[in-house]
């Protein structure tokens, strides 16, 4: 969509947005503080300055911050799959009508070299786009690995791009493999898959590169089993970070901390039970937003659960360049993302 047309269309949104701003009465009431220790926040549920009639969303799956500082949302609403907001919540641009299963959203590069990576669970494909929405490359199901009989078996949920340009694709709703491509886009390795051993995965929903370790490693979600699993960049299993009761979505690392939306708790069978979890460099949970405060016994965390009905099904956390958090949700009444501001 052309940027100018998008702004014209949001003219009506601005008027509606003014009426939606918090009033004097709301400012009188002290805002509750969410989270614990050094990661505490106040909440703004009305951050997005728009109305659904003008700016529709469906499941708000994932977000990133682009090189220009915009907060960018990926939704499977094909009226506008990708929506750019400024930090005040004003929509400033949007594009995308061809991603009905838009799910994973990550980026690589900066400035003119910046690209987005989108996984589509309905098209069974991975896409590399420019920030303006031009598709410059797409990957179909990895037939050459011999692990997939057809496209339907490949349901990619996430990508992660390493410093050398290698790409890792998590098939989190399909056969649970991690497919490793080199920077030219050719398959180098495949690992993970279903099974009971530590190196196996069940709902490998998210993946990220962890540059806090030397050398860098991969952190991969095993959502059914409420944990993250660390692998080397070559696909060798290293360790499990157990988070009892927390069905985590993708790991997001910023400033030494690991953030994750917890979709449901204690298992994937319980509706409207999500919260957000934050771990420090030692993989210890130090803050839970909307859930049980962290407590450790004999070095193990006590099970986590929702304590405040703040979220239904949080699906991703974005941490911006000022350490604000944005949390978007799946299957939550088409809710817009919430913004959390750090309390110093």
């Amino acid at each position, binding site marked *: 969509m052309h940027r100018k047309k998008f702004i014209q269309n949001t003219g009506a949104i601005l008027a509606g947005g003014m009426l939606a701003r918090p009033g004097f009465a709301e400012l009188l*009431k002290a805002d509750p503080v969410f989270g614990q220790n050094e990661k505490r926040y106040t909440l703004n549920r009305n951050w997005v300055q728009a109305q659904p009639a003008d700016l529709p969303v469906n499941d708000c799956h994932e977000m990133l911050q682009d090189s220009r500082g915009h907060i960018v949302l990926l939704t499977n609403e094909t009226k506008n799959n990708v929506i750019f907001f400024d930090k005040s919540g004003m929509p400033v641009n949007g594009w995308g009508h061809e991603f009905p299963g838009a799910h994973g959203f990550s980026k690589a590069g900066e400035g003119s070299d910046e690209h987005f990576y989108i996984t589509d669970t309905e098209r069974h494909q991975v896409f590399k786009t420019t920030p303006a929405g031009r598709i410059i490359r797409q990957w179909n199901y990895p037939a050459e690995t011999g692990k997939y009989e057809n496209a339907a078996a490949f349901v990619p949920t996430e990508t992660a791009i390493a410093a050398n340009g290698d790409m890792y694709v998590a098939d989190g709703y399909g056969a649970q493999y991690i497919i490793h491509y080199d920077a030219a886009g050719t398959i180098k390795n495949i690992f993970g898959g279903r099974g009971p051993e530590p190196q196996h995965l069940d709902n490998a929903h998210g993946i990220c590169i962890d540059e806090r370790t030397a050398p860098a490693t991969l952190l991969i979600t095993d959502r059914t089993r409420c944990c993250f699993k660390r692998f080397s960049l070559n696909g060798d299993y290293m360790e499990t970070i157990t988070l009892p009761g927390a069905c985590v979505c993708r790991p997001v690392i910023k400033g030494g901390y690991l953030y994750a939306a917890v979709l449901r708790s204690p298992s994937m069978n319980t509706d409207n039970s999500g919260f957000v979890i934050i771990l420090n460099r030692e993989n210890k949970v130090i803050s839970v937003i909307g859930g049980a405060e962290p407590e450790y016994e004999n070095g193990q965390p006590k099970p986590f659960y929702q304590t405040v009905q703040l979220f239904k099904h949080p699906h991703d956390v974005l941490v911006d360049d000022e350490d604000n958090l944005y949390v978007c949700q799946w299957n939550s009444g088409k809710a817009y993302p919430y913004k959390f501001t750090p309390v110093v």
Partner: protein
Amino acid sequence: MLAPFAALAQDSLRLSPPQTPVERLFAGCGNTVPFEFRMKGAVIRYTTNGREPDEQSPVYTTPLPAVTPGFIRAKAFCNGFMPSVSRTVQIIAPGLPVDSIIADTSSPQYRATGNSALHDGRLGGRQLNEHWLGYNKTNFTITIYPGRKKKIRRMGISMLRQQGSWIFLPATVTVYNEKGKPLVVLKTPYPEQPAADETVLLTLNIPAKKYKRLTLKAEAIPALPAWHGGSGNMGWLFVDEVLVW
């Protein structure tokens, strides 16, 4: 001055209910009910008379003894938030001892300890391979030999609803006397919509008598409902305990 403004303030968030590891347990035997809610500034308030807890209800500090059959309810409270809905734990009166219970043979993978599982005083949870007898058929029958020791006026059958695993409550439960005459029929509502996982104690009142033999028959819904992913297929019936009082 601030009170009218407080009334206009943005909606408060509601708390989630306190946690407890069990949904129901037998009274006595030293059984206790623990609750937990890890949130600074929050308290748990509870009742043991089945009523909804409120701001005047006692504050929970230590696990509550399961003494009186009925319901223990607990809610979380915290300034600045709306109280949670209740978390409920059912306290069940232990049944009278019986001579024996003989059930139809259940599916091999859900056999627990066989007939004795139905009167061992242990209630099943959400782990299907513990304490439950599972039947993938249209009905099952359980025969109880009370031993004519005491008058029996009520029966209970503890069952499971876990629709995601194709486990539904029975459509009907019928109790027959020694002569095969039906004493009472209990009907459950047809599952028009999905319902949450739950362990349920179905109870039936029968004429008070020292019975020599009682037969209990549970009939499944004809097939999984239209809204279910397995619609048209046969579902499962799961039972973990049969009680007489």
